[in-house]
């Protein structure tokens, strides 16, 4: 699914120069994107809260930010930033969370992301089960131009 994310974000960025990729120091499957669009890539470091507000600020200026991190760092740590800056203001920030760490302890395991995402008023949740659904979620979120959270994980299948 991470590969599908990496491929699709490149595809979107080739089509639309407003696409911006923001990472919270989690660079997975981003090599191609970084190489092709160095000016539209921002690793903001370990500032998960400001990362969400910053992305919302970019969206308010008409850009299309895609924010990538590990699911608990993406949703739980900046929960209020998601509530106020993204959901309340209905700004088209797409947040992609990866949860591939079942053996890495409680810090890297999300709470029930489905339940958390369901609380918001405007954010659409995507829970793809494979690479095809991941690509579709990325494309859908782009077309819908609404705030979205896409939760991915390692599906163990070879990338097609």
């Amino acid at each position: 699914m991470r590969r599908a994310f990496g491929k699709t974000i490149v595809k979107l960025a080739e089509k639309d120069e407003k696409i911006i990729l923001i990472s919270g120091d989690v660079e997975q499957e981003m090599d191609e994107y970084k190489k092709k669009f160095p000016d539209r890539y921002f690793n903001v470091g370990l500032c998960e809260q400001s990362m969400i507000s910053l992305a919302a600020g970019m969206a308010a200026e008409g850009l299309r930010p895609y924010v990538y991190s590990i699911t608990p760092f993406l949703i739980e740590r900046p929960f209020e930033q998601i509530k106020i800056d993204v959901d309340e203001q209905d700004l088209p920030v797409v947040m992609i969370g990866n949860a591939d760490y079942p053996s890495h302890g409680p810090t890297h395991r999300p709470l029930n992301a489905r339940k958390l995402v369901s609380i918001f008023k405007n954010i659409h949740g995507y829970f793809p089960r494979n690479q095809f659904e991941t690509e579709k979620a990325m494309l859908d979120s782009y077309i819908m131009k609404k705030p979205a959270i896409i939760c991915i994980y390692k599906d163990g299948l070879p990338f097609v």
Partner: protein
Amino acid sequence: MLNKRSKELRLKIIELSKANGGYHYGGSFSCVEILINLYDSVLNLEHDKFIMSKGHACWGFYVLLHERGYKPLLEGHPHRDVHNGVEWTTGSEGHGLPAAVGISLARKIKKKKGQIFVLIGDGECQEGTTWESMLLASHHKLNNLTVIIDFNKIQGSGFVKDILPVDSIGKVAETIGWEVSEINGHDNNEVLNSLNAKYKKPHLIVANTVKGKGVSFMENQPKWHANWPSPEYEKKAKEELSK
């Protein structure tokens, strides 16, 4: 001495906030001169943006928007409504500055002109996002960002110096690559000159102010951070501001 405009704005703050259930007089009064200079002389509303990050002190901001024909929702904390001059939803502290960093960075990417101004409180400087944003703004060389701290020395439950002092913020900002000005936030010349200044770095203005400025019994009194004035106090405040 406050001039006529400053006094009248404070009177309007009392009227508007009273009619709409607001009561953060201390912080609303400390930033009046900053807001007046921004709106009357500095902001070009076509290109520039202002974010009222210390959302609880919104009443002077609302009065200035009303004067310009905008009709923002008159709640106790601002709700984003760009058609009515409110650029960001604020009230929970520490949201306006990182948002402004995103806006300023977007403008750099799009090569779009305009200055982004943010007003934050000194209590707000305790928020982690304030420090995160300071690092981000200098790293990305956001010289289209001007941050003003309404340094009134008092927060919700007392004096900032007793709760968690933030006096080092100017020094830290300077060390990590900001241009820092320290001014008297009630002196119109100092406020105007610092707001108009252009630098090659992001600009932090530490505006020393007095909480409750303009009403003797409110000045520098923590209880007037959020205190509903009785009719007697309201009358007294209005009398002082009408002199």
